C-alpha cells in the first residue's frame, strides 16, 4: 500500500494502525502441497517451497529462475509459465506479475501463487486456460521483498511495519543507523499500543466496548494517556522507535524519474541501490516481450494506472483507452475495487516500479491495491443501502482532523463487530497489563498485524481468484497479430502489386503509444524478400478506396510499424521479378509471422 501512514506515525505518537495479537494457527508455517491451498498465508520459506513443488509437478510448462539475493541473503525467485512446444517464451506476449515489494503487504504473493497454480492445474482441463498458456508467456515473482515478508511474519510487527527494504539508513539523522526500532515487549508477535492510567490523559474507556478508547470532552476527567507503539528508548535519546530498520521504500527506488530522499521519502541513496531490486531490473531487462505488468500491494481496493507524477504529463490518449478497457473490466471482476489514476486520485510517487515498466520497457502496467476494508462490513440490508461512501484519508481535500485524531471511529467499531462475529474476536488483542522499564505499569492492546490491511483467511480464496481472473482478462488482451495477404495482381510490365494486412483482435496494440512516442525501441518490422524479386516501392496503405500509399523513400522492403489494438494496418508493395516471395512480420510483443506467396 502506497499510503504514507508511516510518515504520519512519525509526526504523531497517536497512531491508528496498531497490530499485534496472539499468533493464530492460520498464519503459521504449514506443509505445502500441490495443488496449493489458499486458506492460509505463506511464509517466505513456504513460497519458495511452493514454487519448487509447482515446478516439480509441471516441469514441461515451467521454468524456475533464481533472480537474485536480498540484502540479508534470501532468495528471490521467478517462475516462467510457457509451453515450449508452441514456441520460444520470448516470441510470445509476456505478462509479468509480482507482489510484496512492501514487506507487510503480503497477500499479493498469494494472488501470484494462485495464478500459477490455476494456470498449471487447469491446463488441459479448461479450454480457455489451455489456449492462454499455449499462446502467452507468464513471468511471476511472487515475493519481491523477501526480507520484509520474513520479518513481518516471524517477528513483532503491526500492519504497516516491516514495509521497508532492509538497507540500513540513518532516518533520524543522529549518526547512528537503525538503532531504535519497535520492541515486541510481550513477545506475542504483534506490535500493539501502550496506554497508562492517567487522570490527566486525553482518553477514556468507551461505554459500550471496553476495547475502544474515546477522546474526553474539554473539562471531562481523563482516564488513559496513550504512550505510542510498543517499544522502549533503545538509544537513550528521549525518543522511542524513531529509527527502525531501513527506511528504503522498494517502490521508490526504481530508475524512472527517481528523486533523492529529501524529495521522495524512502527513495534510497541512488536509483536501484537495493541489491535485490537491481537483480530484478537486470533480469527483467532480458525479457523484452513483457507487455503487461501487474504489481500487487495493499490496501484499499484499487486498480491504479499511471502516470505516477503530475509533472510527467498524461499518457497518450490511445494508451488511456487500453487502460480504461482493462481497468473497467477489472472493476467488474473485483467488485468494490476502483480503477483510478495514481498521482491524481492517490498521490505522487517518484521512482516507482510501475512507471519504470511503462516508460523504460514500454509495457502497460497496473498496481493492484488489494483488500477493500469495506469488505469487513457488519450491516443489515437496510443499513448498507443507507451507508455513506468511505472518506479517503489520503486526499488532502477530505482532510478530517476529527476522524484522524480520534482513536476509534465508526469504521473501527464496525470492524470490531465483524471481528467478534466472523473471527471470534481473534483479530484484536484485548488490553492487558505490562511492566515497562520507563513508564512503569501500563497496558498493551490493539489490532493484530494480520488485520486492517490483510483479509481474514476465510476471505482469501475469493480475493485471489478474483484478482487472478483480472490478470487473466488482461492477459487475453495482449496483442495477437494475424497477417493477411489480401491482394496480389499484375499492374504493369514486370510489375506486381501486393497488399498485406496486419490485424489485431485484442485491446493492446503491438507497441504502446508511449513507447512509440519516445522511440523507446525499434517498431515492428515487416520485411518483403525473395531470391528473384525486387521491391521497387512500398509503404502504408492509408486509404484503400483512393489507393493512397505513404511510400517510404529508402529501403521499401523493410517497413516499420505498430498494429493498433482492435484494429489493423495495411501495406502496399510494388514488386518486380519472379518466383517466391517471403513476407515476414516480427514484433517484440506480438510474436512473429512468416508467409510465402508466388508471383
Amino acid at each position, binding site marked *: 500500500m502506497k499510503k504514507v501512514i508511516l510518515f504520519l506515525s512519525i509526526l504523531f505518537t497517536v497512531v491508528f494502525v496498531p497490530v499485534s495479537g496472539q499468533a493464530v494457527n492460520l498464519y503459521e508455517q504449514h506443509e505445502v502441497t500441490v495443488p496449493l491451498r489458499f486458506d492460509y498465508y505463506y511464509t517466505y520459506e513456504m513460497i519458495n517451497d511452493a514454487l519448487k513443488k509447482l515446478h516439480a509437478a509441471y516441469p514441461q510448462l515451467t521454468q524456475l529462475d533464481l533472480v537474485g539475493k536480498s540484502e540479508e541473503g534470501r532468495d528471490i525467485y521467478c517462475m516462467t509459465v510457457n509451453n515450449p512446444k508452441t514456441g520460444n517464451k520470448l516470441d510470445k506476449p509476456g505478462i509479468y506479475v509480482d507482489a510484496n515489494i512492501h514487506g507487510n503487504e503480503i497477500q499479493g504473493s498469494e494472488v501470484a501463487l494462485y495464478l500459477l497454480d490455476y494456470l498449471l492445474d487447469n491446463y488441459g482441463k479448461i479450454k480457455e486456460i489451455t489456449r492462454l498458456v499455449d499462446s502467452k508467456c507468464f513471468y511471476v515473482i511472487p515475493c519481491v521483498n523477501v526480507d520484509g515478508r520474513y520479518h513481518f511474519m516471524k517477528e513483532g510487527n503491526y500492519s504497516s511495519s516491516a514495509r521497508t527494504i532492509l538497507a540500513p539508513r540513518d532516518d533520524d539523522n543522529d*549518526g547512528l543507523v537503525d538503532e531504535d526500532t519497535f520492541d515486541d515487549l510481550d513477545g506475542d508477535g504483534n506490535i500493539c499500543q501502550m496506554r497508562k492510567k492517567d487522570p490527566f490523559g486525553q482518553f477514556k474507556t468507551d461505554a459500550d466496548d471496553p476495547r475502544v478508547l474515546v477522546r474526553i470532552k474539554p473539562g471531562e476527567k481523563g482516564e488513559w494517556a496513550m504512550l505510542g507503539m510498543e517499544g522502549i528508548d533503545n538509544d537513550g535519546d528521549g525518543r522511542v522507535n524513531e529509527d527502525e530498520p531501513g527506511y528504503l521504500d522498494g517502490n521508490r527506488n526504481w530508475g524512472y524519474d527517481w*528523486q533523492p530522499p*529529501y524529495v521522495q521519502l524512502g527513495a534510497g541513496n541512488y536509483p536501484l541501490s537495493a541489491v535485490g531490486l537491481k537483480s530484478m531490473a537486470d533480469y527483467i531487462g532480458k525479457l523484452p516481450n513483457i507487455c503487461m505488468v501487474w504489481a500487487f500491494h495493499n490496501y484499499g481496493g484499487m486498480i491504479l494506472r499511471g502516470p505516477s507524477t503530475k509533472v510527467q504529463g498524461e499518457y497518450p490518449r490511445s494508451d488511456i483507452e487500453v487502460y480504461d478497457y482493462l481497468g473497467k473490466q477489472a472493476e467488474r471482476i473485483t467488485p468494490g475495487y476502483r480503477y483510478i489514476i495514481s498521482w491524481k486520485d492517490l498521490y505522487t510517487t517518484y521512482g516507482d516500479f510501475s512507471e519504470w515498466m511503462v516508460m523504460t520497457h514500454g509495457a502497460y502496467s497496473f498496481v493492484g491495491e488489494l483488500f477493500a476494508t469495506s469488505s469487513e462490513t457488519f450491516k443489515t440490508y437496510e443499513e448498507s443501502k443507507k451507508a455513506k461512501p468511505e472518506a479517503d484519508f489520503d486526499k488532502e481535500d477530505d482532510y478530517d482532523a476529527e476522524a484522524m485524531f480520534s482513536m476509534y471511529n465508526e469504521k473501527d467499531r464496525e470492524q470490531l463487530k465483524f471481528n467478534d462475529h466472523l473471527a471470534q474476536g481473534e483479530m484484536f488483542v484485548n488490553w492487558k497489563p505490562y511492566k515497562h522499564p520507563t513508564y512503569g505499569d501500563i497496558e498493551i492492546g490493539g489490532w493484530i498485524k494480520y488485520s486492517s490491511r490483510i483479509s481474514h483467511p476465510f476471505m482469501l480464496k475469493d480475493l485471489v481468484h478474483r484478482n487472478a481472473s483480472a490478470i487473466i482478462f488482461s492477459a487475453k488482451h495482449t496483442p495477437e497479430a494475424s497477417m493477411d495477404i489480401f491482394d496480389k495482381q499484375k499492374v504493369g510490365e514486370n510489375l506486381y502489386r501486393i497488399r498485406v494486412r496486419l490485424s489485431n483482435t485484442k485491446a493492446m496494440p503491438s507497441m504502446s503509444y508511449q513507447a512509440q512516442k519516445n522511440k523507446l525501441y525499434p517498431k515492428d518490422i515487416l520485411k518483403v524478400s525473395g531470391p528473384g524479386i525486387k521491391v521497387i516501392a512500398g509503404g502504408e496503405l492509408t486509404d484503400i478506396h483512393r489507393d493512397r500509399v505513404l511510400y517510404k523513400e529508402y529501403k521499401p522492403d523493410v517497413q516499420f510499424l505498430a498494429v493498433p489494438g482492435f484494429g489493423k494496418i495495411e501495406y502496399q508493395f510494388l514488386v518486380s521479378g519472379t518466383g517466391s516471395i517471403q513476407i515476414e512480420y516480427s514484433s517484440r510483443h506480438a510474436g512473429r509471422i512468416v508467409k510465402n506467396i508466388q508471383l
Partner: protein
Amino acid sequence: MKINCRKIVTCFFVLVLIFPLLENAEPKKALISFTAYHTPSEVSGIVKDIAAANSSFAKMHTLAATPGKNEMVILELGPEVGQTKKKLPAVLVAANMHGNVPISTEAALSLIQQIVDQADVRKDKTWYIIPIGNPDAAWNYFKKPLKTDTRNSRPYNDDKDDRIDEDGTDDLDGNGIITTMRVKSPNGQWMPVEGEPRLMKRADWIKGEKGVYKLYTEGIDNDEDGEYNEDGPGGVNIGINFPHLFHFFTATGGTWAGSEAETYNLFKFVFQHPEIAMTISFGDDNFCLNPPRSGRRETGDYSKIKIPKFIASEFGYDADKTYTMEEIMEKAKEMVPPDFELTESMVAGFLGLGAAANPQPEDLKFYTEISDQYKEFLKKNKMEQKRLDPAEDKDGSFELWSYYQLGVPSFALDFWTPPKPEEKKEEGGFTPDKLEAMSNDDFIALGEEKIDAFLKSSGAPGGIKAKMIIEMVKSGQMTTKKMAEMMRQMPKPKSSEGADQNEKAILQFSDKELQGKGFVDWKTFKHPTLGEVEIGGFAPFLNNTPPASLLDSLLKSQTPWVFELAKKLPCMKIAKTEVKNLESGIYRVKVWVENTGYLPYPTAMGERNQQIPPVVITLKGEGIKIIDGKPRSFISKLRGHDAGMVQWLIHTAKPVQLHIDVSTPSAWSDTKTISIEPGPGGAK
C-alpha cells in the same frame, strides 16, 4: 697492514644514519612524463605501478569493467589505506567523465604525481582519484580515424531500425581524421564567411543571403536508409548518466541514471565512503572560474507556495492562500528559538517543495569568493590570458549530482581552451573623410609603420607599400584628397562578420600554433550517393585539447589549485570547554565546537537534502550521571570559522576524567579530556 678503525667506524655510522633514509623516507617517485597524452591502458598501468610501489599509502580499486572491456579504476592515496572505516576526511577527484577531454586525464595523473611526491598533502586526508571516468570513449583520442565521441562501447540501436551500430562515420579522404562534408544543395543553409572562407555561417535571408551547402559528418550511408552516420558504435556517455537533472530518451544519456556499470558502481563506492568531504571534477567546465550557474526553473515556484493543510493548521498559515518564500520565512522565524538559524533550505525541505534545481544562495557566496581567489591564483601563475570560456555544466553530470544530491562542496576545473582571438584594432579610424581632412604633411608625418597598417586594413593591393605612397605624396602625384576618393570607390574589405567566435578562435590557434593543421582545407570528393562533395573542416578535439608540448606547463601552473581547495575543508575543533561547579557534585559542562575550516559544514544544499550527518559530541565519564542533555549531542550546522555550543548537567560523586569526543565522518575530529575533582576546588 693497519686497519683504519676510524674510517671504518665513520663509514659504519654514516651508513647507519643514511640507510633508514634510503629505506623508507622516499616514496617511489611517480615519474610520469607529460610529453604525450597517455592511452587508457597506459593510465591503468601507471596507477597499478604506483599502487604496487607505494602500498603503505596507495591502493587501486577497480570500479567497473566497461562494455569495451576496459577498466575504470580509482586510486586511493592516504594514510588509512586498507581500513574500511576511515577517520580522516577525503577528497574525490573524477577526471574525464565524458571521455572526450584528454587533458583532464593528464591533469589527474599530474595530481597523482604531486600527491605521491608531497607527503604533507596526504598525511591528514585520503585522496580518491578517478583518472578516466569514461574509458571506452577516452580511447577515441588514440584511434584512427580520429573523432570525438562520448559514448561507451555498449551496443545501441540509435536509429531504431533493424540493425545495431551499423552506420557510423567513415574516413573517406583517408587523412586519418573525421571532418565535415559540405554538399551544394538548393536548400542548403550554410555559406562561407566572406572574410574567412574556411569558416561557414548560416545564411540570413533578411540580409538577402543565400545558403549554399548542406553539412554532414564525413561518411557514407552504410545502411542505405537516407540518413548519414546516424547509428555509430556505442553507447552511453558516462558524463551525463548521473541522477541530478538526468534526461530520459536522449541519444547518449542512457536508459536511466546509473544504467552503466561505470556510473552505478561509482554511486555505490561514494555511499560506502561517507568520509568524502569534497568532490572535484576535471573536465571541460569550471566552477572555480565562474560559480555554478543558476537560472533554471525550480519545480517549486517560490513566489506562489501552497502550504499543505495539516501543516497549515498546525502552524497558523492559511491553506487556501499562496505565500512567497519571504512571507513564510518571516512568520516561521517567530516560531523558532531566537538563536536558531532558519534558512530557506530548511523551509523548502519541510514543505516538500521538490528537488532543488539551482545552487542555494548561501552556497553561491562561497563559490563567488573562491572564484575570485582562483583568478588571483591564475594571475600569480601567469595563467590569466584571455581564453575561450569553458563549457557550461551539463544536466546529468557528476559535478551537479555531487552538489545537489551528495550535499558536499562540489568543484569543477578545466585546463585549457584556445586563446581568445586578438582583436584587430581599426587603425586610427582612417575613414575617407578623415583622410581628406588631413594635410599631406600630416599624412607623411604618420610614419611608414602606420601607413603600412592603414594600407593593409583598407585592402590595398599587396604590392603598394608605405614608402611608395610617401614618395608619391611628396612629389605631388598623390594627395590625401585623391586617396580619400580612391578609398571611397574601393570595394569594402571583407569582414568575417557572422562567423562563430569560437570557431574564429580555434582557426587562429590552428594557424598560429599548429601550422594550420587544425583545419583541413576543403577538397572535392566523389561521394557514392551525394555526388560531388567537399571534405574539410576542423579536426576534432581542438576546442579543449592542446598540443602535448603545452601539457607540462599547463598542468604545473594549474593543478596545484586543487591543494588550495583541499585547504578549505571543514575541520572540527574543540575551541573551549567550561565546567561550572554547582555544588553537591552537580556540574554544568559546556563545550564549544568550532569549524576551523573555511567551508561550511554542511553546505546549504547538504542541509536541504539531509544527506550529511550532524557533528556528534559525546560525553563519557566513569560513574557520572547525565542529568540534563544527551550522552550524544548534536550540532547540525557550522559555517566556516563558526562555533556552536552544547552543554550537559552531570552528577559525579568522585573524581572523574570526562572524555569529550567530537566527530563526524567527513571532517577532522577532536577529543579532549577534562579532570573533575569534586569539592570546592572545581574542575581543571
